[in-house]
């Protein structure tokens, strides 16, 4: 499954970068995230609950590793998730460009492999669920950014 697109954050790149590296913020923003904790340099572990069509509230144990970091410009996220209904594996590449406003344009592209029961019965919906969750996450992060910008 390929998920890619762009998203405009209403704020400067450095502040967007800061949010993207903060597990506490990410845990709040990413839909379905139950826990997310840093376990080492650029390494995170967490639990996510996802519903895809007939697969309801499936729990995934997630390992996330950040790689190829060039602050505040780009990084890659290597994701490895395992749960009772399947697995997910993939890499997301994220690029941030600041434009006047200031607006930060995020360009993301990810290739995620999904296997097991969730792939077998949820295939038809995976892509739309993936897109929906990405949109929700980015909007939540943008809101967090706006709150932070107002309070400083």
């Amino acid at each position, binding site marked *: 499954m390929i998920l890619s697109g762009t998203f405009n954050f209403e704020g400067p790149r450095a502040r967007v970068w800061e949010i993207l590296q903060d597990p506490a913020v990410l845990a709040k923003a990413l839909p379905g995230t139950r826990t997310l904790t840093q376990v080492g340099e650029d390494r995170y572990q967490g639990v996510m609950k996802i519903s895809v*069509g*007939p697969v309801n509230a499936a729990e995934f144990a997630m390992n996330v590793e950040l790689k190829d970091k060039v602050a505040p410009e780009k990084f890659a996220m290597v994701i490895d998730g395992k749960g*009772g209904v*399947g*697995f997910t594996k993939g890499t997301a590449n994220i690029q941030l460009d600041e434009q006047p406003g200031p607006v930060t344009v995020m360009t993301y592209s990810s290739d995620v*492999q*999904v*296997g*097991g*029961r969730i*792939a*077998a*019965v949820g*295939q*038809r919906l995976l892509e739309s669920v993936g897109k929906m969750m990405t949109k929700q996450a980015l909007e939540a992060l943008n809101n967090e950014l706006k709150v932070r910008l107002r309070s400083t």
Partner: protein
Amino acid sequence: LPAEPRYLSARVARNEDARLLTGRALFVDDVQLPGMLHVAFVRSEHAHGRITSVDVQKARQHAGVRAVYTAADLGDYLKPGPLLVPPPPIPDLVFHACTQLPLAKDKVRHVGEPIAMVVADSRYVAEDAIRDVLVDIEPIDAVVDLEKGLAADAPLVHEHLTSNVAAHVVQRKGDWASAKKKADVLVARRFRYDRGVSAPIENRAVAVEWNARSEELTIWDTTQAPIPIRNGLARMLGLLESQVNVIAPFVGGGFGPKIMMFYPEELLLPWAAMRLNRPLKWTEDRQENFYATTQERGQVHDAEMALTRDGRILGVHDVFLFDTGAYDPYGLTIPINSQCTLLGPYDIPDYESEFKAVFTNKTIVTPVRGAGRQHGVFVSERLLDAAARELGIDRVEIRRRNLIGPEKFPVNHEIMFQDSAPLVYDSGNYLPTLEQAVELIGYQEFLRDDQPRLRAEGKHVGIAVTCYVEGTGIGPYEGARVTIEPSGKVRCATGVGTQGQGHFTVFAQLVADALGVDVEDVRVVTGDTREFHWGTGTFASRGAVVAGSACHAAAMAVRDKVLSLAGSLLNVPEGELELSGGRVYVKDAHDRGYSLGELSGKANPLRGAVRPGTEPGLESTAYFGPDRGSTANGVHAIIVEVDPETATVEIKRYLVVHDCGTIINPMLVEGQIHGGVAQGIGNAFYEQLVYDEQGQLLNASFMDYLIPTATDVPPIETAHRETPSPYNPVGLKGVGEAGCIPTGALFAQAVEDALAGSGVEITEIPLSPNRLFELLEAAKR
């Protein structure tokens, strides 16, 4: 048999329906035993990978879990399953047998392959505990596409082999090269033909009871072949065959994948029941059925037909690839069926066919109703359609010119069939079958009047006619025991399993005619090794032909006993006796005689001796084993309307003219044809297993895998012809697979005809509205 049998060829209502329709029939999942535990399996989520660890500690501590087993726990029982059908003795044949371990060790080769077995107080608990089994698999690139699987750098499904080639077979009849030289026209195409799951109403199920006191193992199994399963399990478990009983009760659809597979679940439950000394049950869920029950899939054919200018076939050359899945326990039955059935009812003097079977990281492929015959028929029928167009000959006419004439039987095709015997057609009368179908569908009138008129109205209507043969009724043998009980009722036990074919009726018809009793008074028992333990099973459209002939033979032997005993008691020659209405009596004096029940009492006296050379009772056991199968044939015709905007296809008429030799019960023959056609329509336009590049099956549910519903299957018109087979006394041929064999080829021809002028040529099945739309768009460019 009586000169005018009462039941043979009659529309006798089914003996078994009262039990089935009132919910009193036993299915495996109905088996409930005190103390029964339930089983669930941990299955691979990866199509291809190395198992680095399986941790069952947490699952074993789960409340309600009684045992968790992995490959490491199986000890000596961890052996690859048997090679069920060794390949036929074809010169220079290459075959690599790779069969599956009951639980994967070291490596997984398809999604759904079992890795661990959880036994718990309930299925709920077992399913919950599955999630506590931690499996680590290091993925390897999967082999999904057949051609890529043969590339030099392809990952190996079985690493002890040097490639993914499971088999390589060439069969020749005559000399293709000389046919090609003589040809006026050569038609060459590449064809893809895919199939899918068998989609039975009842999935697989196994229930087991080990009786430690009697040291007997009883297994209720949704198998088509209980006797081979009993014999194999006894051997593997170190028991006498007589200590093991396998019962295949009513089974909700077999279609091939429930044959004697020795599936991991079938092997593991008996083993675990003996260890735990508790009854066990496992019932497959629908998702498991999609990736753990065998299925049929694709072949890619590069085929060429050589013809004269007037449309006579000189020869055919075909090279194809066959997807055998991760293992090949069922040998080469499917590709050899494809290879043989391609010849169809046609006189093809020169034929060369070569195939490679390819291992892939997908579920194991074994026969599903039709068993590769579809693929072969598609190739020859589509080549004939292309040749007809190229030569300007009508589609029916080109077939007419090539049919084997009735004077040519038996026809020896000189190549080897799936039963390791040469492919010989025993009998047939093909031209009248074709003419009757052409007449009934109104082929000429449709082309002359209806099609031009409807096209003028903007309707895209098409007609098609396809021919096929079906090799049926192969050996080795089946048996039956017929007993007249003191009540006058008759019991007939045979070894084959039954999955809805109407065995309780057709076998009863044959027995009732032989003994002159009412068909309702014949109680048939199938698929229970306690009742009858010699035989093979239900497959290859052989139940009625082979087991039916055995029932007939056993009943005729009992008839002889009746005549002999009654003759001596009444002191009249046997020739003067008659059997009818449950009695045996003197022809000219009906009151002189006995009811069969009374006679059975006299055959089992409480005083006196059983004379040497005689047996007590009115009972006989007989066997029937044909040297080779009998070949049925038929013609399907269809009229469709295609909407080129939405690419949907509506079937306006569907007609089958079929010849399965002597018909025991026309109603049941029609039922077999109807069911087959429905599956054929599914294959043609709805069903397809979709795998991604990593070997993940993406549509493992009936939400996404479409099977035709009642509204997609039109009323099916049928007509019967009867050319009796000389290979059995009643003249029977099988009919189990006839309905679905030519359906894909027929559908393709009809859709192409409806879209004539659009440039669409159909060289693949299944189609779908999506795929047809793509073909229409591609043709516009």
